[in-house]
């Protein structure tokens, strides 16, 4: 029988955070053998990791499947760019502003969507996000700049910056108190934010509040008869989750101060769902793993084309090589989304618990290779 850990030790929290921080900050080193040690990609890992962590706080803990989380990502991006345009190119206010605006937006959406559960919640979030997306393209053009996307211009007021410095000739770049946010500094900034985000998630997982959220997922009606008003619990989870998405969105704007509505499209919402499921919904590190893997393979696979494939399979006999390349080519390059969709199906069908579930099964196999029944108590947190 599987068991759940009842009491995580406080000391273990420190250890986890130390290991995690070390792992994240040394990513440029240990990702090098995988060919992923360049700041743009590493930064993507961190940003989408934050997005997935936040999504997991809602879906993983409460079981409420939001299909509109990309809306918060988009709102966060817009807000951050506006912060660059109106106030300062310093990233700190932009991140705070983006997170806040997305959280406020989440209050609004959550208030409406959380009146329903199950598939109705999914459809409501989907409809509301799609509505925001359509509005970003039409009515809200003064704020979003429609199809062109919101960009920095020479004429932006940038009130705070211009109190200290004169308008330069070119467009200014994002910075943290003067340190330019491109290349590795940009990655390290995102990495630090990721570590903070992970810490918050860890605390929530191990708090009474997190326990209550998990109980809602397990049996929501029972929570009512236990004396809890579930709706505010869900709303707060939703707001935190939306805030994380907004944070990720504003970090995207830091790398590239440009925000477009396509970030809000529902396929983007689907992507974060996939990341979370792939890694393991409801587990602490699973969503991070999922986000990293998807962004990694997206980066690698979408760069493939027929000639690179021919190179890779050159060791095969000629006829076989062409067949293999023919079979593989629809899944790479432009067809990367096909791989993504297929992966999605495979995971949901065969491994609904995601990679973390797979690892757990593996470790059980390894520990008791002979026993058919794996009912050994298990103590580590998933």
């Amino acid at each position: 029988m599987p068991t759940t850990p009842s009491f995580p030790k406080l000391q273990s929290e420190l250890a986890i955070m130390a290991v995690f921080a070390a792992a994240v900050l040394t990513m440029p080193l240990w990702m090098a053998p995988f060919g992923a040690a360049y700041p743009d990609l590493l930064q993507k890992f961190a940003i989408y990791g934050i997005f997935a962590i936040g999504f997991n706080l809602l879906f993983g803990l409460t079981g409420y499947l939001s299909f509109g989380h990309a809306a918060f990502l988009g709102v966060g991006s817009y807000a951050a760019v506006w912060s660059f345009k109106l106030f300062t190119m310093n990233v700190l206010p932009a991140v705070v502003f983006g997170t806040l605006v997305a959280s406020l937006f989440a209050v609004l959406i959550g208030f409406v969507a959380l009146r329903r559960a199950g598939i109705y919640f999914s459809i409501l979030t989907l409809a509301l996000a799609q509505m925001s997306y359509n509005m970003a393209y039409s009515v809200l053009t003064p704020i979003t700049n429609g199809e062109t996307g919101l960009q920095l211009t020479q004429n932006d007021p940038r009130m705070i910056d211009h109190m200290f410095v004169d308008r330069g000739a070119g467009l200014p770049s994002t910075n943290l108190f003067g340190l330019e946010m491109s290349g590795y500094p940009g990655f390290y900034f995102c990495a630090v934010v990721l570590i903070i985000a992970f810490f918050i998630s860890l605390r929530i997982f191990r708090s009474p509040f997190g326990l209550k959220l998990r109980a809602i997922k397990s049996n929501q009606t029972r929570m009512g008869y236990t004396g809890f008003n579930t709706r505010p619990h869900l709303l707060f989870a939703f707001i935190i989750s939306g805030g994380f998405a907004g944070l990720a969105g504003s970090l995207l704007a830091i790398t590239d101060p440009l925000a477009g509505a396509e970030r809000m499209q529902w396929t983007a919402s689907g992507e974060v769902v996939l990341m979370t499921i792939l890694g393991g919904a409801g587990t602490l590190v699973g969503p991070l793993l999922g986000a990293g893997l998807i962004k990694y393979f997206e980066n690698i696979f979408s760069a493939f084309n027929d000639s690179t494939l021919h190179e890779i399979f050159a060791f095969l006999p000629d006829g076989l090589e062409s067949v293999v390349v023919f079979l593989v080519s629809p899944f790479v390059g432009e067809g990367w989304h096909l791989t993504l969709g297929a992966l999605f199906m495979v995971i949901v069908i065969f491994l609904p618990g995601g990679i973390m579930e797979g690892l757990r099964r593996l470790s059980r196999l390894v520990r008791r290779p002979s026993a058919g029944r794996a009912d050994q108590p298990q103590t580590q947190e998933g």
Partner: protein
Amino acid sequence: MDAFVLQILNGLDKGGAYALIALGLTLVFGTLGVVNFAHGALFMLGAFCAVAVEKLLTLSKQVKDESITFFDAYKEQPYLEIWWGDFGRAIIDYSVPLSILFAIPVMLLFGFVMERGLIRHFYKRSHAEQILVTFGLAIVLQEIIKAAFGANPIPQAAPEPVSGSANIGAWFGLGEAVVYPYWRLIYLFFSLSVIGGVFAFLNMTTYGMVVRAGMADRETVGLLGINIQKRFTVVFGLAAVAAGLAGVMYTPILPPDYHMGMDFLVLSFVVVVVGGMGSLPGAVAAGFLLGILQSFSSMTEVKSIIPGIDQIIIYLIAVAVLLVRPRGLMGRKGVMES
């Protein structure tokens, strides 16, 4: 008055498409208890059946262009035209309606395979997992279509005799302004007859009645010793055909592209929710209603009062319905209300 009639007409053909897709969606939910996020992809597959048939019929070879005399010019001429002349040309002209003959077996087969191979294994799993796996399938399907047909919309022509517009205004003495493309009129009647066919099947055949009984109370029907599993497969195939036909016939109205399924899926979910989850008449009524409302909200007069309303009207209605009357217009009391 004329503008009013015109907007209703404009909404009707779109409403017909919504109704057909939503009908299958709600039928599958009501009988199988499965939320199918790949249903929009079935609509898209239907549309690409028409594209495939058109491509097949217009397979061409290069022939010398006789009309150009001062140098050697070549043009593509379809085999059908070469073999059968005018008759061949007529067949090509009617490729969209002819695609129906192709789409019915293809969609039926696809529906059967999809139900047997995938959906069946998800009856007992959570709605969230159903949503996820069918969402994955939808992505796979649309990416396959994208790989096969490219990313750009592929316009399809309505048959030449019905490519013009009907002066409906003159028919009913409403004024010359009310003109309406013949094809849209045909689409409206087509969708109505498919809807009628589905209802007739469900209400007038014993087979259909068992299916409806299954919608009301699956366990009892199972206890009666009726093989409900097999009927579920048929129902799913039927829903796939309805969505596919909606797609085939819609191609002259909207040039099909690989992501049209996703666009229509979100809208038809809204339609199902507004109509009432599991209610067939509700889905049809809501389909037409939302189609018409959408067309009204895109009138310049309306847009000048509330800018952008045409983009969001359907979602606003869905949100309002879910909040005020979650069971929808015609949903059964107590179904998913709390």
